[in-house]
């Protein structure tokens, strides 16, 4: 005998799904209603009275859930779990409809599937109640659908499956941790892969080194969804160099920016007019310390959550606390940096390095005048290109400054090139600052990718017109070659990027503002008189339609009968109705003849008796 599950098993699974969804979403009203409906439906099934399923209930039923989905209030800064729970309630609704109409259109397989989808969606922010409910539901399902042939065989097979699953899980976990010798090493690897060093308030020369070699060089750090390639993405720029230690320190001068225009839920912090009002979205894949990366000269940034952020002298933004995982920026029109325009800090050179810098300037043929800024830059670049080698391994010594080692050995990488150039330009009287960030992204289709290996340092200098410009002294031949990614890498990167963008657009996209407006509009509409009148009109039209259908059906019934028969039936009905008013009712199955016999002949009944007599005499005549 084919067995498609018992009613009791299905009820347990449904109740477990309701309890799980109730415990995670805390909407007790719906849960109580669902519980009541499922128990009532079970009672009806038990007595063999299921409803007939009309698929239109399932299709129309999505409307209230869709309205609920569109109109529930936004929670800025957080992902609302209602995104998951509202669809879960809809699946529960479908499960209950199928359950109500089981064997009359509804099918047990859909009751199971919809209930398990509810349990699955309830696992989003699962708690102990939801997990117990899920275990009960799955256990009941497995017990209910088992083959009734042999219980022992079922226990054996289930046990083998559970053991097999346990073994495979263990093997999988072991493979993931294969090659790691200790937990500490695992944590360290995890920490290194998830965080990025070198962008704190104190920058040490050499901190970028690990980014350029090793297995994490090709780790994606930023995805910038812009049509224009942001050549540089600045994180921080430094003001003061500490000789002997190779340290840079950022300026303490800053001002707090307040929110201005918004990009969806992201509050904008602007310092000037943007070049393009369309903000560019950046997504970071790792934890950053507090830096907000943006192109040099960006007009502002937009971040979810804070009411204000500090904007530092040196033209960079920072968070108070940990950086977010994504933000927006606006490209800026070239403006003068009023915060640091005339600051002598950007000319500061440690006296201990004066001699070194003078020797270098003499060697390169640099001139300390305003008119020589661009020729100095050219000379510095040419000198580095021809006379220096790019190397990640610098033989540093405790007895000398790293810059002295750099100048002596004529080798180094971007941090050294940029630091040396900054101090050289300052010595020549050109205000400069040392900037770190990322540069030279690779195209990813409709967006730009910055890898760990794209971490870079460069120089920002103030030109004679009073504008800050970027200058990259690192020889271009030293830039890492763009590696051609494999098909799998390309495909998986594209998939991750698309999912990331899709989720961003879904959860914090600007369309939510229009949906909030739609939500307000629908609530106003539902309260308006017009809608109420419209509903009344629909109700009246439905009633009228029903009446007309009844009349049409009756006409069709009468059409099959001849006029003569209709006439005699009408006479009989009139007589019966009149006699009913007088207290005489024809019993079911009683012939008209017999009925007539028990009616006494009185003035009131005589008229009706005449009708009955003529009915009996003439109704069955043939013509």
């Amino acid at each position: 005998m084919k067995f498609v599950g018992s009613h009791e098993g299905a009820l347990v699974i449904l109740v477990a799904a309701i309890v799980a969804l109730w415990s995670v979403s805390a909407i007790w009203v719906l849960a109580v209603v669902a519980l009541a409906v499922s128990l009532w439906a079970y009672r009806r099934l038990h007595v063999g009275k299921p409803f007939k399923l009309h698929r239109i209930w399932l299709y129309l039923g999505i409307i209230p859930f869709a309205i609920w989905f569109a109109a529930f209030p936004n929670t800025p800064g957080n992902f609302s779990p209602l995104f998951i729970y509202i669809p879960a309630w809809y699946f529960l609704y479908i499960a209950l409809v199928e359950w109500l109409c089981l064997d009359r259109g509804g099918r047990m397989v859909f009751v199971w599937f919809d209930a398990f989808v509810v349990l699955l969606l309830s696992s989003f922010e699962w708690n102990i109640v939801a997990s117990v409910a899920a275990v009960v539901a799955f256990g009941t399902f497995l017990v209910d659908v088992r083959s009734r042939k042999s219980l022992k065989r079922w226990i054996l097979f289930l046990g083998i499956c559970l053991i097999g699953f346990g073994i495979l899980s263990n093997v999988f976990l072991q493979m993931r941790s294969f090659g790691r010798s200790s937990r500490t090493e695992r944590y360290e690897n995890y920490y290194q892969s998830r965080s990025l060093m070198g962008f704190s308030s104190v920058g040490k020369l050499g901190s970028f080194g690990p980014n350029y070699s090793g297995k994490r060089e090709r780790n994606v750090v930023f995805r910038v969804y812009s049509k224009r390639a942001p050549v540089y993405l600045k994180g921080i720029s430094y003001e003061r160099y500490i000789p002997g230690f190779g340290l840079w320190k950022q300026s303490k001068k800053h001002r707090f920016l307040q929110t201005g225009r918004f990009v969806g839920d992201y509050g904008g912090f602007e310092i000037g007019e943007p070049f393009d009002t369309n903000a560019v979205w950046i997504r970071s894949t790792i934890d950053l310390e507090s830096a907000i990366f943006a192109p040099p000269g960006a007009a502002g940034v937009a971040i979810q959550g804070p009411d204000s952020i500090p904007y530092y002298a040196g033209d960079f933004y920072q968070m108070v606390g940990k950086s977010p995982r994504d933000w927006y920026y606006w490209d800026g029109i070239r403006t003068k940096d009023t915060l640091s325009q005339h600051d002598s800090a950007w000319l500061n050179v440690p006296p201990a390095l004066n001699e070194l810098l003078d020797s270098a300037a003499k060697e390169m043929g640099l001139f300390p005048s305003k008119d020589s800024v661009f020729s100095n830059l050219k000379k510095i670049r040419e000198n580095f290109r021809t006379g220096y080698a790019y190397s990640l391994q610098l033989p540093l010594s405790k007895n000398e400054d790293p810059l002295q080692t750099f100048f002596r050995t004529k080798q180094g990488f971007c941090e050294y090139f940029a630091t040396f150039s900054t101090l050289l330009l300052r010595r020549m009287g050109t205000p400069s600052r040392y900037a770190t960030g990322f540069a030279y992204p690779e195209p990813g289709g409709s967006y730009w990718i910055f890898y760990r290996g794209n971490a870079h340092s460069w120089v920002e200098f103030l030109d004679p017109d009073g504008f800050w410009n970027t200058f990259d002294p690192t020889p271009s031949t030293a830039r890492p070659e763009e590696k051609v990614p494999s098909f799998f890498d390309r495909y998986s990167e594209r998939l991750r990027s698309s999912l990331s963008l899709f989720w961003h657009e879904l959860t914090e996209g600007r369309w939510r503002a229009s949906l909030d407006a739609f939500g307000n509009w629908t609530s106003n509409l539902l309260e308006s008189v017009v809608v109420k009148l419209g509903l009344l009109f629909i109700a009246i039209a439905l009633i009228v339609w029903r009446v007309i259908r009844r009349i049409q059906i009756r006409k069709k019934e009468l059409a099959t009968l001849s006029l003569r028969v209709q006439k005699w039936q009408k006479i009989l009905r009139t007589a019966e109705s009149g006699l009913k008013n007088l207290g005489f009712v024809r019993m079911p199955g009683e012939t008209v003849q017999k009925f007539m016999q028990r009616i006494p002949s009185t003035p009131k009944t005589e008229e009706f008796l005449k009708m009955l007599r003529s009915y009996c005499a003439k109704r069955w005549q043939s013509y």
Partner: protein
Amino acid sequence: MKNLLAEILWLWKAYPRAPEKPGLLMRLYYFWDEAITPAGHVLCALMLFGFLFLFVPGFAVLKVVEGASLVWMIFALVFRRKPDNRILHVEVPMATEGELVQILAKFEKPLTKSSFVESFRMDPSVERLGNGLLKPRHRGVFTLSKMAFVELHPLGLSQSLRPYDGMAELLVAPKIKSLSRFPFLTEGASGAKFERLLRPENSRGMEFVGVREYREGDSLRDLHYKAFARYGKPFTKEFATESGGGVTLLLDVSAKHFREKMCVETAIRLFGSIAFYLLERNLLGRVWIGNEEVRFEDSKSPQKKILAALARVPYADLHTTYTLEKWNVLPDADVPVLCVSVHPVTWPAVDKQVVVVNRQMNRAENDSLRYVLRGTETVE
């Protein structure tokens, strides 16, 4: 507009729902249907649904569920054993469209709790309700190409089959509604031939065989007055009738275009109603479907024979065309012939014809030609 909608609906329904030759997708569906139980379907569908959320943060538990489901399904599908029982003989009773029919099978060993007979790869118009119970939606002949003895896997997620070696077919007869009156038969000059047969005194014998309820048109001379008096409603005496003779019925289902094809089913049902009407009154002579005669003189149940013949009439669909160029029966002065068709016929042997049409239009009717709208079950 109503007619246009009806035509569009017919075209939509007439479009074939299953390929003539199963391709790869169809074979995958066969595997899904035959090897996996409904419980297994739920688990597989859940696995596929869960993939959408596998990489979404917050659904860590899902990975466990997906892994467990995958392991269970692989285990259930790989470790299946062929059943040791088998089907020896199958009997499929004739069904009526829209009504349930149970496949009756005889097994080598007694059935256990988790085994049953099932017919797979059925035509999409036949609904399978499990345990060999079928519900055909429309008439026709359906070959039960894969009947099998099915046994559930212990986990209940998969099943194994042992196909039946023989073949069987499901015959689905059209649903016939009884005709209470048929005045067209005796109308006009062409009705004279029919009227001779209908007169009770001509067909009635002397042997009293019983009483039945009065029907419109019965002779008053045959009223059973005692029964009338006792029960208060009229009854008619029945007499044994003479055999031989009777109305010849012809069903012509040739259709040139889809509007005529739309009317074929109504024509078949109407033909069945008329045949049953004449049979009840012992007036049915020969029955022809095209040029093939349905013989039932020695049959105990001529209704069943007629229904079986009607069930085998080819289904009028989009890609098949059936034509009847000429009806081979010669005219006979004593034998009245009634034809039911979807377009007027001009064969000399036909005395009266009922034509089922798709749309109500001004058509010339006379006493020998009556048009009936598609969907109508009577002839007025």
